């Protein structure tokens, strides 16, 4: 049963926007959420010595690659007993996120005055991830993107980036990159049918998994069970499937998701039908 070991490049896109409902509900939850993500990243590196990891943080102003960092910090201290590489990963991710969040908070205060709903530049972050994947293509057998975000009870989030999203998803599809998404929603909103339909569509297009969870303390379990296996192993495992996905497109005029619209025969852009009630 000697199966040749497949090395994978995993790009984790973390949404660090500090307005997420999760963070506002309970501060400790956010920490748990981040710890779970770091443990997940380490588990990925644990699987195979040749596995590569890239972590991208996406905020409302810019996207940053937080791991790997170009220069190694001098901090030699490792967490006792832990594999030194994992300690490095943990340290780097933690310190970088801390910086980013405090920066984001500052800009958020400014933004509040402007009365603009802040949202992370998720599509751009996935784009950066794809570039990174393309660069390391020759060193690994397969590549994957995992998006982790905490949802703002707002299913219209990201609609304004609709075109950018579709572009990166189709690129990912063409590059044979699986895009997974794991959305944490706060407990009281779970029953409502909140889904980020754009991410759902993207996962479906690239044969990835879309997960919605409310129990953050079990977040790591979800990640390890479903998002850790690579595409090859997933064929052998029974994993949750998506029930129904809405393939609504956004109109070009208002960036709203629409059921019926006009489609331009030349550029295929869709326009909202304005029903005039008189």
């Amino acid at each position, binding site marked *: 049963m000697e199966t040749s070991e497949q090395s994978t490049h995993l790009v984790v896109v973390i949404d660090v926007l500090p307005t997420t409902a999760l963070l506002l509900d309970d501060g400790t939850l956010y920490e748990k959420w981040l710890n779970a993500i770091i443990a997940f990243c380490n588990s990925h590196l644990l699987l195979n*010595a040749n596995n590569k990891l890239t972590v991208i943080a996406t905020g409302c102003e810019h996207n940053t690659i937080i791991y790997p960092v170009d220069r190694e910090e001098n901090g030699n201290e490792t967490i006792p007993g*832990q594999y030194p590489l994992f300690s490095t990963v943990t340290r780097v991710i933690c310190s970088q996120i801390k910086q980013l969040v405090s920066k984001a908070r500052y800009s958020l205060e400014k933004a509040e005055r402007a009365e603009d709903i802040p949202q992370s530049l998720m599509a751009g972050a996935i784009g950066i991830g794809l570039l990174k994947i393309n660069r390391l293509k020759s060193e690994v057998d397969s590549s994957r993107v995992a998006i982790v975000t905490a949802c703002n009870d707002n299913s219209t989030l990201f609609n304004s980036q609709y075109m950018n999203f579709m572009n990166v998803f189709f690129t990912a599809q063409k590059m044979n990159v699986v895009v997974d998404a794991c959305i944490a929603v706060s407990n009281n909103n779970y029953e409502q049918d909140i889904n980020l339909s754009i991410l759902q569509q993207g996962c479906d297009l690239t044969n990835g998994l879309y997960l919605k969870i409310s129990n953050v303390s079990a977040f790591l379990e979800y990640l390890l069970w479903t998002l850790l296996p690579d595409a090859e192993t997933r064929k*052998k495992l029974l994993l949750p499937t998506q029930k129904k996905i809405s393939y609504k497109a956004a109109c070009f005029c208002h960036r709203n998701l629409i059921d019926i619209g006009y489609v331009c025969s030349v550029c295929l852009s869709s326009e909202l039908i304005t029903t005039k009630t008189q």
Partner: protein
Amino acid sequence: MNAKTSIRCQNFREYLSQMNALTLDKLYAESAICLAVFRELPPLAKHYTSRLLFVEQPIPTAVINSWVTQSALKEHNETIEMLKSLRIWSDAQVPGGLPAFLVNSTFRNSLKVALLGGGDPWIIKQTKDKDKHERDITFLDNYALERWECILHFMVGSQNTGEGISADTIQTLVKAGLTRYETKDTSPSLTAEGFQFLLMDTFSQVWYFVIQYLANLEAKGLNLVECLSFLFQLSFLTLGKSYSTEGMNDSLLAFLQNLRELGLIYQRKRKDGRFYPTRLIINLTKGHKEPLNVSKQGYIVVETNYRVYAYTDSPLQIALLALFTEMQYRFPKFCLGILTRDSVRQAFRSGITADQITNFLKQHAHPSMSNTPTILPPTVIDQIRLWELERDRFLFHEGILYSQFLSQNDFEILKTYASDAGHLIWDNPAKRVMVVSPSGHDDVRRFWKRHKKEH
């Protein structure tokens, strides 16, 4: 007669599954070892282990069986068997009496520590201050290769025999059956297994040697668990960084010196207090091997007319080529051999396989050979393989020959009896000879005696 005496490089998993339960449990208490074991598992087993990493109670078998799709059921069962043979999983029962599996708690805890931290610190620490004589990766690669080749040179008995090779290493080579002493005072000579060892790639050689070395460890008064844990901690270090020897006890320091001799680590001076791991040891736990990144090019050109040109003057490399080619000419820096049926069969006879030969040629192929997709000419590869198959044409059985029958009738009767009883191996009616299996010999002879008496 047909038994091939080829040596095979065991992987770490097979090595572990031979150990007894007590030793395994002791090994699993070390997080570095658990990390190495985990890396060695096949993909499905890795996922099963990480799924249950945080689950403390037994999991019903039925639940685990529902994890996979129907098509992967065979692999699923094999995975479970393997996890059980490594004692990572054991049979248990859930309170209801249903069969279940329980993850070995020692293993689980150690792996958790490796992943999340929280246990005893590792023995090896990075050096705090900067090294005055800092070494880069190229230097380490060259050093490692040089040391390792020193051992190979010693094995073939070429140049400066015995220099820099300790009695310990020689002893390991002899115990592993790679070399043997013909007489007491001469230097050891290579065995058939040794030749096969030389044809393996460097990574497999290191593994094979390390496993043999570990087997003799306890006789030297070193603790297996301690050394193995240390070895794997070494293999998880970062290439090109220096580490401190502080806090190691005497037996570990002795072990370190042994590794230094093999080129697995680099230490400028014995008392230096710092050392660098080399790629040889870093690769120990990597699934696929990164070759030593040295500016060393392949030197072998194989042509479709079975000529092998080798641009080398190293006695080791020439000796290796001479194992399976007929040497024709030798010039300074260059020699020429021909792959002939006889020379290749000669190699087969000492247990070398066709794959080993072609792999060796590929591994050391001259850069200009890499233009073709197969690197070597396909005809040559095929022919070597055919020569190997040729040797498998015969099936050897022991047997007893019955001959000099006086009449055809006697022969027929005995032949019919033997073939009915299933003892007949071969017969030739024209010459009235037949061969009977040794187990059936008594029976057939008794029948023949009775038959003679009756007539």
